[in-house]
């Protein structure tokens, strides 16, 4: 598992990367009431805004952590946004993306570094 400074977690499954937000991020956001996911098949560049999540407090964007193609989205989340609070690092993943070069993940933090990052 790798972590971004945007509080995303990235998990490699074969040749795809599964992306979600961390428990810490979900706690900071508060109760999530809306999730808008990208279309499957979309080609994205690193830092593109690919997911919109809104909590009772505010709207925030989830950025593409890497260049690649969105190959699958977790569509049930749109109907049950509260899952993001219930199980952010498990059931509530947002999308899976196929990337050219998995070594790009090396730039991101490991769990110990992320824990240190959030203090």
């Amino acid at each position, binding site marked *: 598992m790798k972590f971004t400074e945007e509080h995303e977690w990235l998990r490699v499954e074969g040749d795809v990367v599964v992306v979600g937000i961390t428990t810490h991020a979900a706690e900071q956001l508060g109760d999530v009431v*809306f999730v808008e996911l990208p279309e499957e098949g979309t080609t994205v560049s690193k830092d593109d805004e690919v997911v919109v999540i809104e909590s009772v407090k505010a709207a925030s964007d989830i950025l593409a952590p890497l260049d690649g193609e969105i190959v699958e989205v977790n569509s049930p989340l749109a109907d049950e946004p509260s899952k993001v609070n219930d199980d952010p690092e498990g059931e509530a993943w947002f999308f899976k993306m196929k990337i050219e070069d998995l070594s790009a993940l090396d730039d991101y933090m490991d769990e110990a570094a992320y824990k240190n990052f959030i203090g």
Partner: protein
Amino acid sequence: MDELKRTPLHDLHIELGAKMVPFAGYEMPVQYKLGVLKEHLHTREKAGLFDVSHMGQVILSGESVESIALALESLVPVNIAGLAENRQRYGFFTNDAGGIEDDLMIANRGDHLFVVVNAACKTEDMALMRAGLEPKGVTPRLLGDRALLALQGPAAEDVLAGLNPAVREMRFMDVATVELAGAECWVSRSGYTGEDGFEISVPEEQAVDLARALLAHDDVEPIGLGARDSLRLEAGLCLYGHDIDTTTTPVEAALTWAIQKIRRNGGAREGGFPGAEKILAEFDTGASRARVGLRPEGRAPMREGVEIFAKAEGGAPIGRVTSGGFGPTTGTPVAMGFVDIDHAAPGTKLFGEVRGKRLAVEVAEMPFVTQTYKR
């Protein structure tokens, strides 16, 4: 920047795990451990305790309550002289352009009036009252030694009656002096959630004891400003500085119910408040825009600032959201805003532009939830 002020309950908020944020010059709890959504739902199911000590509590004193009431009528287009002893009424200060300077609650407490104004407007309101009332022999005094608590929700009566059964006799908008947890409290049966409940002015040194006595009840949870906002939004109640301000008239803001007939054209005490000519004329001519409820059809919340359009494509905006978010009780996004009068009828299909997309929204009756006041 000035140091943030703290309410007498500050340390209790910290002890209860509140997340504190700056609000109107105060450090205030935006939420506690339950979080906004659960705090909101708890208030509608049982009872929530709110610290609203940042609001301005003002005593208006003078020769007689009648003379004070008549003086205040020169600033507020409300029938205050007709307000019976131990009754309270909603009102607002108007300006010469017919806009609203602040909204407030006005209580007749026998030999004086007690008014509660918004925290952010305290200084301006005091200046406005001093200028308008002192020449008429009425002295406004901003109280610095009392906290203000609100206990809201269907269990509020039972909870408060546990401290003093006399509160059961009160009806919506009644006010009374009631001893609670050893403190002399000024209680009104009112609130800002759409639920039955009470607002309680308590001497600051006894505020924590009273709050603890209320929180000791199983049905009571502390509730932050986050849920206070979603509760009042579902109840269709205005937030000053957002839904109403110096540029919105009472007729535009759909607050004509607060201006009793006696202050309108043809009434015994018609006019006589700032902007009266414009405001009263609007009763006959109608306003060019109106504050309405808005129900987004999808799941995306439409927040303050979202522009409203008549069509799915093209055209200039015909309105704007002034308050919006997710309604935990309705389970849907809810909003209110101003739209041109031609598009203000309930049921009108409009579009709100969110992140560049025009999403369907319908003009809706407010409140979004049934009010449960004890009339």
